[in-house]
């Protein structure tokens, strides 16, 4: 065979054209449906959170479609797996907004992922729901945050923990924006309740050896330890803590344990007695929760993966759907206006209401104690407002704000 330059050029051009059309192929999805993007880490370090969140989106959309869809159309889910890599959020955010032209994006887990995708979706004018408990303070009309913030979780947790354990607190936190900011809130609410944080240590997400830290904590002699550790590697802290027999000596509270069902990974001996505060617990004894668990079991067969973040995602999708219904349109600004009327839904974790000024939610908060790998509710607070963000953010007055505010101490 004689392969001259011209035929080679032709082949090369054909090949590159082919690969290009291959990349663009996914643009031709079913038209006419309302598209909802689910952008979560379905693999990698944080898939313990992301997989259930994606399932929660599926469940919510199934229900919406079974009830006749929205505005007479079906809702179609477009799923993206960001593989626990933050840069992929930017990439898939662009793809969802520009190529797949979705009406709304639900997604983001770590605060780092939210900050990667938020500017992208702002620039390309696509509505964004962030359904995770986080450090609070995001003030942006294009985003709705449906998870609990420190004023809801830490404020509920702190007086209970200080009352039960004592006033001296040692904080250990993951070393990224969530851990940095939440530890300030911990210090703030400790002070409000007459306590004091004597030391705060930060750990990169891949640190798994806490021996030296445990020795340090002992020499500081706190009344309890506040943990804002995140992810797989940090689980070893709880293990090593129990292994050195510290559980009997210094009690613990956490803002993060349990959000991804970590209490099931730990044994009862390692987890028992740790105090938490969340919007949801599987142990909630309400008809709404029982119905939710039954629906989940029917669809996915197993209720084990359900956790705080999955429920927040489910509630987030329902809120969005309520907004679309009220607006009678999927136009971004019309939906935002509708949501800003202070819309509410009744989710598995009770009533959730959008706070118009901050785009955060007013919801129920429960103080929880881990017992036998279960999250038992020990105290409930009804309809707590996101006061932290309210104190810095007013989107009615400054609709063009896109800042994330941090608390100054």
């Amino acid at each position, binding site marked *: 065979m004689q392969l001259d330059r011209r035929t080679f050029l032709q082949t090369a051009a054909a090949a590159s054209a082919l690969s290009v059309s291959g990349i663009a192929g996914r643009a031709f999805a079913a038209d006419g449906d309302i598209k909802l993007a689910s952008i979560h880490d379905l*693999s*990698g*370090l944080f*898939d*313990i959170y992301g997989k259930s969140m994606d399932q929660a989106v599926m469940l919510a959309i199934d229900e919406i479609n079974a009830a006749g869809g929205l505005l007479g159309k079906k809702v179609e889910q477009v799923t993206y797996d960001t593989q*626990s890599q933050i840069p992929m959020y930017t990439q898939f955010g662009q793809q969802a907004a520009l190529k797949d032209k979705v009406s709304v994006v639900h997604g983001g887990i770590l605060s780092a992922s939210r900050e990667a995708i938020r500017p992208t979706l702002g620039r390309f004018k696509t509505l964004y729901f962030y359904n995770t408990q986080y450090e609070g303070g995001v003030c942006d009309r294009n985003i709705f945050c449906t998870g609990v913030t420190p004023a809801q979780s830490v404020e509920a947790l702190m007086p209970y923990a200080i009352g039960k354990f004592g006033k001296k607190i040692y904080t250990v936190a993951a*070393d990224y924006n969530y851990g940095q900011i939440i530890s300030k809130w911990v210090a703030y609410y400790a002070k409000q309740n007459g306590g004091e944080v004597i030391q705060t*240590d*930060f*750990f*990169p997400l*891949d*640190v*798994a*050896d806490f*021996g*030296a*830290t*445990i*020795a*340090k904590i*002992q*020499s500081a002699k706190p009344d309890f330890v506040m943990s804002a550790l995140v992810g*797989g*590697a*940090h*689980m*070893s802290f709880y*293990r*090593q803590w*129990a*292994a*050195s*027999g*510290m559980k009997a*000596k210094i009690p613990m509270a956490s803002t993060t344990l349990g959000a991804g069902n*970590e209490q099931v*990974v730990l*044994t009862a*001996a*390692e987890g028992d007695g740790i105090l938490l505060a969340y919007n949801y617990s599987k142990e909630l004894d309400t008809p709404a929760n029982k119905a939710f668990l039954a629906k989940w079991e029917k669809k996915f067969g197993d209720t084990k993966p359900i956790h705080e973040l999955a429920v927040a995602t489910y509630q987030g999708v329902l809120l969005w759907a309520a907004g679309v219904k009220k607006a009678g349109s999927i136009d971004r600004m019309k939906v935002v206006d509708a949501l800003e009327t202070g819309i509410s839904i009744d989710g598995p974790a009770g009533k959730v209401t959008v706070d118009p000024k901050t785009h955060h939610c007013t919801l129920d908060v429960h103080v929880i104690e881990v017992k036998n790998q279960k999250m038992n509710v020990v105290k409930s607070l009804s309809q707590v407002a996101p006061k932290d963000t309210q104190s810095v953010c007013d989107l009615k007055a400054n609709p063009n704000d896109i800042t994330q505010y941090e608390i100054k101490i």
Partner: protein
Amino acid sequence: MDFVAVIILEVLYAIASLALISAGLAVVFGMMRVINLAHGEFLMLGGYAAIVSVRAGLNIYVAMLVVAPLVVGIIGLIIERCVIQFLYGRMLDTMLATWGLSLLLTGVVTMIFGNTTTGISTPIGGFAIGSYQASGYNIFIMLAGIAVIAVIFTVLKTTRLGLIARGAMQSADMASGLGHNPKRIYMVTFTLGAALSGLAGGILAPLTGLTPTSGGLYVSKAFITVISGGAAVVTGTVSSSALFGTLTQLTMLLSTPVWGDVAMLFAAIVLLRLLPRGITGRFFRRQV
């Protein structure tokens, strides 16, 4: 005073765990000049082997000390037959191939077990030193570290197997002239090295939560320890573990875990710049 005792325990534990995670790599590197970048994944596999067998109802010590090295040893054998044996003498190619293997093994384990954290609890509780609590399991790790090093030393120094192996490594031609098959000796050495890694992975599994990417936590530490130690398996590993273990742990106590790691990495660069053949390239040269 009690605090000092706790600190000393922590430092000794750091040294022992460094020696444990490096031993398998050291054997393979020292004897065969093969740098196995899938070493971290061998540890990770050992951890999974131990956890799975504990979940299946096996005694935890059997799982850690027997099942983990056995499983990883067999995996090592398969890998040696399928990949490594074709690359002897090509050091850089081996590094690349084993780097590929490390990704591949991570992928396989992710597909089987999912990318979630699993773990088992330590079988030994804590104990008190004065007003302080210390982990009893750390003592177990120290003993295990000492035992592993002692066994390697004895095998290399006093047994016939060790003698033949050392001979074959120095001169493969001579060894085969004397009737020993160097290919078989390489194969056995690599398998044993893998088994050692599996053992370490099994022993460390109860301490840390395990994910398919856990190997990455170990490999750079082990790699740096072994290379800085130099070619002598036992003295090299012990001396550089002692150096880095002490340095990391003390830096960690004084500041944060990040600076502990960074101190170790910096020390390694300085060390390699000053002693390009590692510690045992300069000192303890006639040791094993």
